[in-house]
């Protein structure tokens, strides 16, 4: 009995304060809002592909010159997602939820900048090299992960890039929305059609990010996922403390 009690009293783990409350709220608000922005955006994009033969357009395809490898999207995909003929719902939702998406994004950037959390997120000099090692380890090409604190190099690059993509979506969206009043912005982005191209492919990139992100979270397991809700992660007592690092700022 005494031995068991001693074993039990030996502390090998602790609760790491991983994600601040504000970041958790902003993360989970962004998830459905971005989803609605993408779905409503695709409902708008569909309208251009309607009667596509009347105006062969460069925005919605993968190809070179007059050779198109893939129309975006093929008809079965439109049907599967129930996209056709929902243009006005798309417009209404897009111009509604854009405010929440933008406000949430600005709040996130301000919060990370002021709180100092950006130090966990913005890539450092060795992040690119670390990212390569992380990818090799993920693909089981190479064993062992480089040292990290909150995020590894691949995460730092991914999370910073996706934040910049959000800003890119807001600016290219403004350029599309007000191409006359904000024609300087539209011109900087290469004109109206390029702004639409950029806005569309940023959206496709969000979808790719989402796919990889969800897969990685699934592989990382419950402890990691839960920390984006409860804020706390169970870690070995020997692991470097994020809280100590926060205090050092």
């Amino acid at each position: 009995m005494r031995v068991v009690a001693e074993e039990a009293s030996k502390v090998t783990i602790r609760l790491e304060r991983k994600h601040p409350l504000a970041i958790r709220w902003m993360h989970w608000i962004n998830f459905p809002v971005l989803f609605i922005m993408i779905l409503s955006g695709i409902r708008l994009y569909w309208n251009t592909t309607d009667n596509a033969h009347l105006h062969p357009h460069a925005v919605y395809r993968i190809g070179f010159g007059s050779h198109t490898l893939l129309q975006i999207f093929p008809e079965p995909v439109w049907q599967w997602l129930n996209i056709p003929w929902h243009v006005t719902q798309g417009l209404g939702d897009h111009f509604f939820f854009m405010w929440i998406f933008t406000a949430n994004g600005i709040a996130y950037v301000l919060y990370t900048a002021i709180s100092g959390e950006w130090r966990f997120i913005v890539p450092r000099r060795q992040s690119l090299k670390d990212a390569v090692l992380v990818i090799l380890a993920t693909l089981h090409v190479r064993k062992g992960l480089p040292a990290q604190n909150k995020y590894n190099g691949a995460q730092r690059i991914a999370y910073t890039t996706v934040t910049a993509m959000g800003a890119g979506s807001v600016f290219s969206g403004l350029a599309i929305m007000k191409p006359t009043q904000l024609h300087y912005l539209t011109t900087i982005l290469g004109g109206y059609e390029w702004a639409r191209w950029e806005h569309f492919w940023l959206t496709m990139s969000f979808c790719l990010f989402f796919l990889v992100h969800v897969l990685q979270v699934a592989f990382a397991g419950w402890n990691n996922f839960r920390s984006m809700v409860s804020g706390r992660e169970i870690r070995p007592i020997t692991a470097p403390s994020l809280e100590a690092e926060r205090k050092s700022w």
Partner: protein
Amino acid sequence: MSAHPDPPEAEAAFKSDAEVLAASRKYTRRSFAVAALAAVAGWEFCRKVFYSSAIGDQPWPRRRILQADAKLSRAIFDERALAPTYPVSKSVMLRTNGHVGIKEELVPESWRLQLVGVASAQRYKQYVSDVTAWNYDYAGPITDAGELIREERKEARAGKLPRGLEEAGRSLSTLPQGTPGLLLTLDDILKLPKHELVTEFKCIEGWSEIVHWGGVRMADFLDAYPPQPKPDGSLPRYVYMETPNGDYYVGYDLHVCRHPQTLLVTEMAGRPLLQVHGAPLRLHAPTKYGYKQIKRIGLIAYTDIKPDDYWTKLGYDWYAGL
């Protein structure tokens, strides 16, 4: 609200792994309960946005936001900016799109522009006591590949009109019989200074084309035929236009019509306007989407009541400002 409600010291005092796990469970229960509540609240919010009762085929929260967006645009931009212009060599023949109100070939000689709300209208020689009595003559339907495809589609969908192709019905702003005003001929309009403009035409469907327009400035037209001021001396706020048969109708802010690039168009690509593009007179406004650039104008009315608008009834934005 602090980032973490409990001080780290409280957690540092754990005496065993079991205590750590118990604490974690407490936080997990609490935070997931909050998350569940937030998810329900979020879904209720979205349901309100998606499924509330509609104003002009748009659930009211979305309609209100469209109106708020327009208000903000007016406050910030006020249609001050000029749209970029392009060399004529970059222009193309505008694609035909949308046939509401111009499905029949109009006999050009029978065209007159009804103009209502002009200051001291009686002093003009074109004054008539009832502009609505004017008869337009038609010479059979306009046939066009795009229109035929749409008709086939409608049939393929077994009579269920796809969204965006429904008819919005009659205008609420159409003139009552006996409305006095002017009946202008094309020559009257062509007396105004001619302007050419090469701008990018943008359709809300997503496509855009650079077009070479020719015509007269709406601002010059407003100077030649100024609106009747209200008793307090201010001008009416809106302009209403419709096709000769009244099937297509659009409302504008008066000051948008004063924008120097708002044209009453009589020529496209250096040639007289075609009927499918709205001959003899259509509107071009690079501050607005294409659905606001009405083809074949039969009536222009200055009014202080916000005019009815074809596509606004079908869920689109009245303002449509670019």
